């Protein structure tokens, strides 16, 4: 427990407010996310946890009516600074979505997409190695090594989601954001992904939005509870689930609410 507490915080969010047109979705969020840890964001539907996650790689920029205030710093750099290049920012952050969304290309091309896109790997052998390494790290290599050139969309749901994780880690991100990555998967596929998340945290900082409290308890070291756009409580997962400070948190984690 102690060494985890010593982990320095990689992402600092202060006074983050998010508006969709006139409606405010997030209120004054102050949250630090520590390096090489899994932080889970929990809360009832519509509480703003996904919105918050999408602020970290500025995916909300895509939505015209969405406006973000406050500051989010990664490695002490405010990513909402006008000088920040969003494309460069996103090349350092991997994201995994609720529904597996591989590109309609081969398994190989899905994983090779990021490295090729950012021009980081120039030689074919290096690219082959990178693809293999990413697929191995995503626990998918043994299953797909003979079908690298089949379309990624032909894999099963759980495999597709692991392919998306492999695609995300192929660009060597420092942060991986996961937006309910298991909600479309069966329990066995979910167990595999959870195992994977546990392995990945040694190398990456992971933030995961989940609806499953068991999942949050299983995979994360820290948990943040959101309710109606506000961050109610954040702390070590054990503490949040055993002895939360706020009544609302307790009601939610014990299943009396939401």
């Amino acid at each position: 427990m102690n060494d985890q507490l010593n982990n320095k915080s990689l992402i600092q969010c202060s006074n983050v407010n998010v508006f969709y047109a006139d409606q405010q979705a997030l209120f004054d969020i102050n949250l630090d996310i520590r390096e090489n840890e899994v932080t889970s964001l929990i809360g009832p539907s519509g509480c703003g946890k996904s919105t918050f996650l999408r602020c970290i790689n500025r995916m909300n920029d895509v939505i015209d009516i969405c406006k973000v205030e406050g500051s989010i710093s990664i490695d002490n750099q405010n990513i909402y600074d006008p000088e920040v290049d969003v494309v460069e920012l996103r090349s350092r952050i991997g994201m995994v979505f609720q529904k597996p969304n591989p590109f309609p290309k081969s398994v190989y091309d899905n994983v090779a997409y990021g490295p090729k896109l950012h021009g980081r790997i120039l030689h074919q052998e290096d690219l082959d190695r990178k693809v293999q390494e990413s697929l191995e790290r995503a626990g998918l290599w043994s299953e797909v090594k003979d079908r690298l050139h089949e379309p990624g969309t032909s894999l099963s749901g759980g495999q597709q989601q692991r392919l998306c994780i492999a695609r995300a880690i192929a660009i060597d991100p420092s942060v991986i954001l996961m937006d309910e990555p298991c909600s479309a998967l069966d329990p066995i596929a979910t167990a595999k992904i959870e195992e994977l998340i546990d392995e990945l945290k040694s190398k990456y900082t992971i933030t995961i939005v989940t609806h499953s409290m068991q999942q949050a308890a299983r995979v994360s070291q820290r948990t943040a509870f959101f309710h109606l756009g506000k961050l109610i409580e954040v702390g070590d997962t054990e503490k949040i689930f055993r002895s939360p400070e706020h009544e609302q948190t307790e009601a939610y984690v014990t299943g009396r609410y939401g």
Partner: protein
Amino acid sequence: MSSNNFKKRHRAEKRFKAYGLISLVTAAIMLIVIIGSMIYKSIPAFTNYTLDLEVNMVSQSLDTDIEEINYRGIVRDSFFSLFPEVQDRSEKRKLSKLISSSAGYSLRDFIIENPTYGNKKFYFSVLFTDDSDLFYKGYVDVYLPEDERRLDNQEIFWLTKLQSRGRVESKISRNLFLNGDSREPEVAGFYGATIGSLITIFVTLVLSFPIGVITAIYLENFAIKNRITDFIEVNINNLAAVPSIIFGLLGLAVFINFFGMPRSVPLVGGLVLSLMTLPTIIITTRSSLQSVPPSIREAALAMGASEMQVVFQHLLPAALPGIFTGAIIGLARAFGESAPLLLIGMVAFIVDIPASINDPATALPVQIYLWADSPERAFVAKTSAATLILIGLLIVINLVAVILRKRYEVKW
């Protein structure tokens, strides 16, 4: 009670299926009738009766320039020699009208190509005029009173006599496939109009496809949504519903009168048809871009792709089948369009085969209109034949659309 309800629902379903089947069969029968009658009517257009004529070039002096020889006279003399009993001048004139006035020209072309025949006696096949041709094909009712027929008894006697000598032969009409328009039905062909149509549609494709697709991409993915873009959008949708003749008027006023471009040329035709096709291409491209799942866009953006990379690496390839289909539907519509072309002068009588976007030309639909309007009976068959070719080309265009769609289809 409830079982009654089920019966009723099943009956309703059966009725609906029956309605569907009836409409389908009706549509199919109509299509078969139209195409069938077109084929039936066009049959006479594909053949032409010819006369094997012995032409005598021996008397021609070797010094005469082969371009200067009186070929028409030679053909006429050879023809008259088949009827030594006809001596009267006015009868001779009548006799000479049985064979096509093009005979002299085709002999000339033949001699220029084969100069060795320039002083020989040989058999050369010449076309009959449309009226004689129709007589041989059985379209002249000899039991009608003489003054109600295109051919009088004397002419019919001559034609029958020729046939009894075994000099008359039915051949595939090469003119139909290889010639431009002509006042003489036996010479007229749709090759000129087909080439004119293809050049025009090429200009339309080159202009409207890139402009339409780029406009659609810009409006869909890059343009800021405000009143101006809303206004443009509404107008594009309205333009798609504007009658095509309006675009012809616009082309006449802007391209020909204002910019001083030439009349009757495929360039202007292509410009006008591009204006007409653009809204269709823009609308279909936008809707195919919209139909790409948003999750793909999000995945690419989150990987750090720029907006342009998202468009060109993901949205466009996935939308391509839809874009091709839309573009080809638009082009097929333009291909069958005649009204705007009438206004910019592509309805002129043009004999030469166009070779560039700046040569006077006409288009297939306009050629059909011109022939349908001609009084000569032989043009009825030509009209049907040209219509068949137009339909055939449209089927080919649609086949290309289907092939492209299958080829680029993305499976999710």
